[in-house]
């Protein structure tokens, strides 16, 4: 399938991998980056010329942590709606988590997700495979075959590996396949029954808490196991100040660790739960202002390498329940770019280049994806966004099947304009 060549003219190209942060034309031919230069004059016949002056052009954004719910929970989201939501959010690729029903713990299941992703024809859909059979934390799943089938990492996300011995085996085994072991760090013993951060707010509301220690214990354990196995550990959605500090020190020690910051942990605290707002219920929970500030500092200095949404769609009926009964998670694909751009780039806390590092370069590097760069010959995965576009978060307009977001009504600046995957426009807001 060969699409028309595309020339993106006059955009502000931000491509940290090549040290570009300037006005450039970008030519895409045969699904690849053909040329990036101040002025591309010669283009193949039939080239679609798009004037993107005033817009920012970046290597395609990647969200390395999404829940697409298929198979098994298609009332919340499907691979197709999730991939379309990703494209609408400016993402050219996502990495799906394996906690579906049945879980992604076999090569066949990996193949199913990838095939459904290709069929969706929107953002690229990559997938992780489970660490353990059935996400049960007891014995290793067929990790080697899942990697051969295309899995880019292993994780039991949402079902933390409580058995440190199993985590050791998973990390050792991962070395054979050069994949990261991603972990949702949580000691289920300490967090048992918890539905929000443990602190003054939980005590006042009479809700059971998950203390920071439940996350910190597993972060430390995982770092220690990563150090002694030499494996690449990827810590998901870090939410505590102590956790950020431990990761910073681990990197100084040379431990192979990458880590995520989510937009909600960067921007919200457990005060958002007041009024028993189930849109603010997620795991790990929103924590204190001290923790939020530490996550922000960690994202800014690169301790937390990547911004990942933990896109977790739920049906509105499921969220419209008593707080204890509502499921964890919020959608993030269609708000992430706007939130990060508004609150961090426009405020001057990070540069556009750093944003692209956190949302494209680092996720590509961590998960060994052929992406994150506009180098000649690279796949033509490109995000174009309008940095001045003002918009208000309105879940009713989401491509996602779900609308559970605490950011409803937020006024943001910066919106996706074009999402191009393999040289083909999969989202066009012009």
């Amino acid at each position, binding site marked *: 399938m060969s699409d028309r060549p595309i020339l993106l003219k006059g955009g502000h190209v931000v491509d940290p991998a090549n040290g570009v942060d300037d006005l450039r034309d970008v030519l895409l031919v045969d699904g690849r980056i053909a040329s990036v230069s101040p002025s591309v004059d010669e283009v193949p016949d039939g080239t679609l010329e798009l004037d993107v002056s005033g817009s920012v052009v970046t290597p395609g954004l990647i969200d390395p942590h999404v829940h697409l719910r298929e198979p098994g929970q298609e009332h919340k989201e499907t691979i197709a709606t999730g991939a379309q939501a990703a494209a609408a959010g400016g993402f050219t690729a996502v990495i799906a988590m394996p906690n579906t029903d049945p879980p992604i713990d076999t090569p066949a299941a990996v193949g199913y997700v990838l095939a459904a992703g290709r069929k969706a024809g929107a953002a690229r859909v990559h997938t992780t495979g489970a660490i353990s059979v059935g996400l049960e934390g007891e014995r290793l799943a067929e990790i080697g075959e899942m990697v051969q089938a295309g899995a880019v990492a292993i994780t039991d996300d949402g079902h933390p590996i409580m058995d440190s011995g199993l985590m050791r085996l998973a990390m050792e085994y991962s070395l054979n396949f050069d994949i990261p072991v991603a972990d949702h760090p949580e000691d289920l013993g300490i967090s048992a029954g918890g539905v929000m951060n443990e602190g003054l707010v939980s*005590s006042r509301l*009479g809700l*059971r808490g998950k203390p920071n220690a439940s996350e910190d214990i597993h972060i430390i354990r995982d770092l220690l196991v990563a150090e002694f196995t030499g494996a690449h550990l990827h810590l998901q959605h870090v939410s505590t100040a102590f956790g950020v500090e431990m990761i910073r020190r681990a990197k100084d020690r040379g431990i192979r660790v990458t880590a995520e910051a989510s937009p909600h942990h960067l921007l919200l605290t457990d005060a958002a739960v007041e009024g028993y707002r189930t849109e603010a219920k997620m795991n790990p929970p929103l924590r204190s202002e001290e923790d939020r500030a530490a996550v922000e500092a960690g994202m800014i200095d690169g301790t937390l390498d990547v911004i990942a949404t933990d896109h977790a769609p739920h049906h509105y*009926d499921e969220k419209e329940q008593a707080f204890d009964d509502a499921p964890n998670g919020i959608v993030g694909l269609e708000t992430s770019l706007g939130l990060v751009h508004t609150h961090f780039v426009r405020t001057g806390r990070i540069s556009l280049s750093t944003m692209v590092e956190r949302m494209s370069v680092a996720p590509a590097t961590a998960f060994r994806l052929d992406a994150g760069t506009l180098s000649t010959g690279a796949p033509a995965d490109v995000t174009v966004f309008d940095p001045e576009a003002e918009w208000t978060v309105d879940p009713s307009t989401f491509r996602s099947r779900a609308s559970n977001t605490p950011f409803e009504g937020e006024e943001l600046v910066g919106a996706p304009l074009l999402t191009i995957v393999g040289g083909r426009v999969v989202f066009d807001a012009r």
Partner: protein
Amino acid sequence: MNSSVSGLGKDLVGLERLSAAQILSILDTAEPFKEISQRRIKKVPVLRGKTIVNLFFEPSTRTRVSFEFAEKRLSADTVNISSSGSSVVKGETLVDTARNLEAMNIDMVVMRHGSSGSAQFLAERIPSNVVNAGDGRHEHPTQALLDLLTIRDHRGPLDGQRVCIVGDVLHSRVARSNIYGLLELGAEVAVCGPRTLLPRGIEQMGVRVFDRVEEAIEWAQVLNILRLQLERMEGGYVPSLREYNQIWGVSSERLAAVDRELLILHPGPMNRGVEIDSDVADGPHSVILQQVTNGVAIRMAVLYLLAGGSPDSAEAAKGGKET
């Protein structure tokens, strides 16, 4: 939406957001209603024509019966729904239950539910008045109000009183409502119990913490002793009921160590020989049964105020004193 003139608003979800004036207006309104329950004909027509649903998702005897007496003595029409045998166990969601109630045009709902925040959830979704009869570990406002009334009956204004809540504060909606109400009225509040059963951040709520019940007794003028549920031992929060009684049980020996006479409250039902010894429960300073009596008056006052009654006209509403 019927907003009442009492200043309570549409619902009574908890005491956390009530002002001292609002709390006192409920206590003052309860005073004239106490007398109705002493009459031979225990009924006044204050809520005639009002329909009230008592919606109990958790088993309850004393709170449900207390509300029901309060409603009947005010001449309301009442329906009881309990979790066993209702559509609740058939998987109907709380929001659907709420919509069905709304469709039947009822005036008030008294609800007990196992989830914190459920009373507010319901209150935000139906136009009827909602009275929280206990939501999870959050609040049980009428219980705290009857505790406040009982303390005031014996010790006068709450301002400056030293009240210690003893026991399982972590799981207790009674404790939270008491803390909010007592602090708002100017009392000093402490809690005492195993640290496994005290919520984190409790000091930031403005209460002292005593590790030893002897220290609590030394400090307090009033003890509000919470029930230790058997499940807490099964959940591993305390090693055994025997040990709990040995270390935190309120006994006459422990009370005898101080010169002061401590007022003894307990929200019931009691585990005699666990959190409270029988000679304390049945002793001269126990006001546990008066709490039950006051409970009916408090609930009458709350229902009356939410229905739009004014504190000033409560005496007239009940038809003056029976002669």
